[in-house]
């Protein structure tokens, strides 16, 4: 690990002002906020990340889960994943979020990892994590050996000729389906970012993963009021029964009235270069009978743009079955 200066900003304004001196808030940032450390410290050991300054935000007042007057939920940036997953309101009204978080990592990691840290979780692509290898995400312009190399775990949606790295988060998939809003404090004040606008597709610039600029500090995430009567399911398929990243996962929020789907929010994990909201699946489902044929149609729609690499073609059918099964499970609930 490279040496760094360790600071503990007194407040958010001071943290923002200091971080604003960074050249970038993206890959290779020279100033980084440190919360749980479960991603950043790992990548610093690998020297994938080599910040010169760390700003410890663990003592800033962002560690609360609060109910909002509109019935929604405010989740602080440093709320630990365990605390969020076991929060009574989350378990009752946002069950898909609780299920998603509890399907990821291990108890030890969930006890340390935070809300904002999970939003910024980095890919597990082995080429990104190995500084001996080229990687457009880590070192722009060096190439993507994953495309011709080992890519079984990598993405089939949202890829480009420059990067096929999978976003590994489970929490983000649920938040995409719940239409969360990310709240950022920056040099020009506070702003809100819709969940779907927060992560970027790799396109020509895979080293840019989010809309964050130098100084931007995620302070909290809000969830809209829960959908009355919604049935929520997170289904994660993986090589092991526990403690493994998804090959494919699906987050589903479904309302059914009579025989028909009246509301559907769908997101996929383990298959996209970002947490993958599928408006196509939602459109296919809404207003149609909640049955197996329509669930399969929705899955076909969600994966229509999927592109297989040499080793991960199986993910296309796997993701379809994952989503169809999650929808059926929700409908049966």
């Amino acid at each position, binding site marked *: 690990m490279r*040496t*760094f200066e*360790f600071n503990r900003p007194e407040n958010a304004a001071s943290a923002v002002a200091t971080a604003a001196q960074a050249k970038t808030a993206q890959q290779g940032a020279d100033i980084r906020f440190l919360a749980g*450390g479960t991603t950043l*410290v790992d990548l610093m050991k690998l020297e994938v990340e080599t910040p010169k300054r760390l700003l410890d935000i663990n003592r800033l007042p962002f560690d609360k889960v609060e109910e909002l007057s509109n019935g929604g939920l405010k989740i602080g940036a440093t709320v630990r994943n365990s605390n969020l997953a076991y929060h009574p309101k989350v378990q009752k009204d946002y069950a898909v979020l609780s299920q998603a978080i509890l399907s990821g990592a291990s*108890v*030890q*990691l969930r006890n*340390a990892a935070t809300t904002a840290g999970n939003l910024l979780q980095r890919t597990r692509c082995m080429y990104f994590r190995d500084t001996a290898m080229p990687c457009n995400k880590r070192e722009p312009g060096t190439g993507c050996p994953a495309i011709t190399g080992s890519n079984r775990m990598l993405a089939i949606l949202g890829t480009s000729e420059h990067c096929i790295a999978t976003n590994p988060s489970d929490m983000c998939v649920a938040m995409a389906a719940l239409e969360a809003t990310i709240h950022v404090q920056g040099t020009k004040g506070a702003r809100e970012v819709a969940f779907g606008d927060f992560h970027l597709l790799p396109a020509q610039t895979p080293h840019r993963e989010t809309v964050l600029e130098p100084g931007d500090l995620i302070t909290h995430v809000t969830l809209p009021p829960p959908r009355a009567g919604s049935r929520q399911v997170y289904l994660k398929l993986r090589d092991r*029964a526990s403690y493994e990243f998804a090959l494919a996962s699906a987050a589903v929020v479904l309302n059914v009235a009579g025989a028909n789907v009246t509301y559907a929010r769908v997101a996929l994990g383990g298959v996209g270069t970002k947490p993958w909201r599928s408006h196509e699946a939602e459109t296919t489902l809404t207003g149609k009978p909640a049955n197996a044929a329509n669930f399969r149609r929705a899955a076909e729609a969600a994966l229509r743009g999927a592109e297989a690499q040499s080793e991960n073609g199986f993910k296309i059918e796997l993701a379809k079955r994952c989503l169809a099964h999650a929808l059926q499970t929700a409908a049966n609930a």
Partner: protein
Amino acid sequence: MPYDDEESGTLHSLSGSAGPTRRKFLVNTGTAAAASVMGAFIPAQAREAGQSSSTADAPAIEGAVPLVLRVNGTDHQLRIDPRTTLLDCIRETIAFTGTKKGCDHGQCGACTVHVNDRRVVSCLSLALLHEGHEITTIEGLGTPDAPHPMQAAFLAHDGYQCGYCTSGQIMSAVALLEEPCGPDDAAVKELMSGNICRCGAYGNIVAAIQHVRKNT
């Protein structure tokens, strides 16, 4: 004793036994390799001599910063390199060697300790984040004469083979007792999935944990 090498640590690492151990052997041989890590053992020797832990006499570390770390009920006044992980601080600076370094990347669970009664992997956390926290390691759970019920259960159920992952397994298992966990073995396996045992002692580990859950 099931363990006669202090590296095994589970029940024995604070015994301060008079006999030769691997650690003392390495220190005393004076080889170049051993000399390069001598600094790490000074506090251990101080502790064995019954002194309070201090790094006042330790060699200067460039860029070191002060830290008071509370481990197993004792405050340790330290000066550490900011890069020091909680794991390395516990093992190398304070010299509680019961906590093990496995993968050093948060994937194996061997380094599991409790921070304010919650289990975390100590390899992925900087020691500087833990001033004011109550750290508990395997040495803080029990003693050879008065083991924690979970330590006793691991012995009774043979919940290990080589023993390297055992302290992490036990720290996770003790924390699990206070976590939301269903009654059946499957629930235990799910919550213990962050602790890898390459010997494959999983069946006996689950049995040990279930024994404690049903008898306390």
